[in-house]
């Protein structure tokens, strides 16, 4: 159709969004890259210092501590969101009645304001006054385990990761559930006729059929957790055990006014996300190769 090849109309429809996107997302990324090579505190002269910021980052023990914490955070969040999410999705496929209500309610925490979740968990993990979690420990006879989970350096990282993991379990459940119910019935039936049991069906038929969606969930979840910020920033201990790469970058940029150094850390976050995606894709390709 000629009308669909109207170049002027195409530009009218496309240009506003494209320009908006470039200006608010891509121009800042390029600027970050440039700032990463500068020594600048926001006022006065900027000077190009090559890779000095990156060398500084490499030698900065606080930065590496943040990276280490961030990996712990990723591990907890991925375990909760993807593994528990997958477990729930599988569970739902065996339930006949009420799945849509269950789905809606499981999903509820995902829509609640982060600051509300953060404050809620600040209370849940609190010792003085006794929070929900400590009350429950006492209730089941584990009173001696009670502690201030958020301020104890040994448990603080887990205590800021759990709320983040918890709130998006429902999101991953919904995604994985839709993939599971899209598996053709014939595949399952054929396997059942061949005499596979329930567990084998899950292990050898269902999970391989949704491998693509699982890898996408892992990508979403891991890149999401690598840039995790809100909850650790809001309720993390002002020390080092809940410092993540993002919160460290934020502190360097907006408290210490080290815009150059902050930008180089921001670039690091982009790079580690790209690397994570590449690793997951490679692992899933490898697995596919084995199966074939």
């Amino acid at each position: 159709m000629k009308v669909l090849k109207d170049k002027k109309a195409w530009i009218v429809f496309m240009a506003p969004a494209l320009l908006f996107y470039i200006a608010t997302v891509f121009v800042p990324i390029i600027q970050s890259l440039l700032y990463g090579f500068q020594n600048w505190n926001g006022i006065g002269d900027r000077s190009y210092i090559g890779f000095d910021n990156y060398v500084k980052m490499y030698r900065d023990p606080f930065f590496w501590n943040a990276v280490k914490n961030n990996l712990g955070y990723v591990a907890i969040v991925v375990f909760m969101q993807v593994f528990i999410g997958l477990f729930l999705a599988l569970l739902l496929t065996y339930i006949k009645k009420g799945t849509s209500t269950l789905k809606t309610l499981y999903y509820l925490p995902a829509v609640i304001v982060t600051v509300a979740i953060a404050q809620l968990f600040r209370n849940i993990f609190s010792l003085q006054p006794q929070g929900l979690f400590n009350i429950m420990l006492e209730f089941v006879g584990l009173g001696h385990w009670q502690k201030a989970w958020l301020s104890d350096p040994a448990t603080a990282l887990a205590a800021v990761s759990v709320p983040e993991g918890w709130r998006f379990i429902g999101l991953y459940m919904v995604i994985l559930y839709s993939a599971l119910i899209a598996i053709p019935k014939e595949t399952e039936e054929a396997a059942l006729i061949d005499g596979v049991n329930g567990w084998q069906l899950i292990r050898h038929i269902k999970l391989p059929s949704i491998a693509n969606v699982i890898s996408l969930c892992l990508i979403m979840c891991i890149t999401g957790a690598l840039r995790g910020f809100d909850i650790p920033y809001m309720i993390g201990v002002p020390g080092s055990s809940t410092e993540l790469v993002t919160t460290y970058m934020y502190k360097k940029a907006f408290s210490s006014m080290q815009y150059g150094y902050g930008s180089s850390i921001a670039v690091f976050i982009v790079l580690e996300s790209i690397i994570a995606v590449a690793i997951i894709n490679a692992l899933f390709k490898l697995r596919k190769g084995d199966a074939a």
Partner: protein
Amino acid sequence: MTTGKFRFSTFLLYAVAILILIVQIYPVIWLILSSLKSSIELTSRPFSLPSTWLFDNYSSVIRESHIFLYIKNTAIVTFSCIILIVLLSSSIGFALEKMQFKINAKLLAFFTIGIMIPVQVTLIPLFIMYKNFGLLNSYTALILPQVGFALPLSVLIFTRFYKYVPNEIIEAAVMDGCNIYQVFYRIVLPLTNNTIITVASINFIFIWNDFIFSNTFTNDSQYKTIAVGLQEFIGAFGATDWGQTFAAISISIMPIVLIYLILNKNVMAGMSEGSVKG
């Protein structure tokens, strides 16, 4: 024997499902119940229903804090963003999916990579730019990046819908004398109602809940959104007054929960859209 076993496993299945349901929603219910209790009752009977339904916490939050100002700010930002997002992404989606240009696939891919980009990488450059242009503490400062970062997913959702709009409809409209703009606004756009609701509802949730942009670009109460405002007056009340804190939180989550309960199908569809690629 088999039926007995079957019944037991069904029972177990539902028991686990309900246990998890409790883990997922009990904290929210507990939060709302706690907001209706006095401080004494909160510590002495934390799990019970409030003995009398106290609205004192609510009235003091409303009296002593700027909560309604924050809600107003959040609403202004959120609705401006949604209007822009729907306008921009519905039209570019049409151009990329329905119009026939070779570069369309590449442009769509360019938008799709935006889903992976961490917002933090843009904070410093935007902060500096806003400072130079005097845009810190303004609605604009919040609206610009929110719309930019919402575009990738929204464009994707629209293009996926347009795929199912048959070209015959467009042809028929052209025969009737419509030009391309009329085809879009009079014929295609009205078909996308449900998609518009999906895009609007997920972005409503993302933007209403945003913390990092408003925390970075606003520090004047006049422009603070609820996510940042809430954080602030919790400190002002001190950590001990949990009753008021819970009341403030309850007020702030109400619009979201309401929208979600009405539009949950659209919300779930939209949020999972990003991952389930065609």
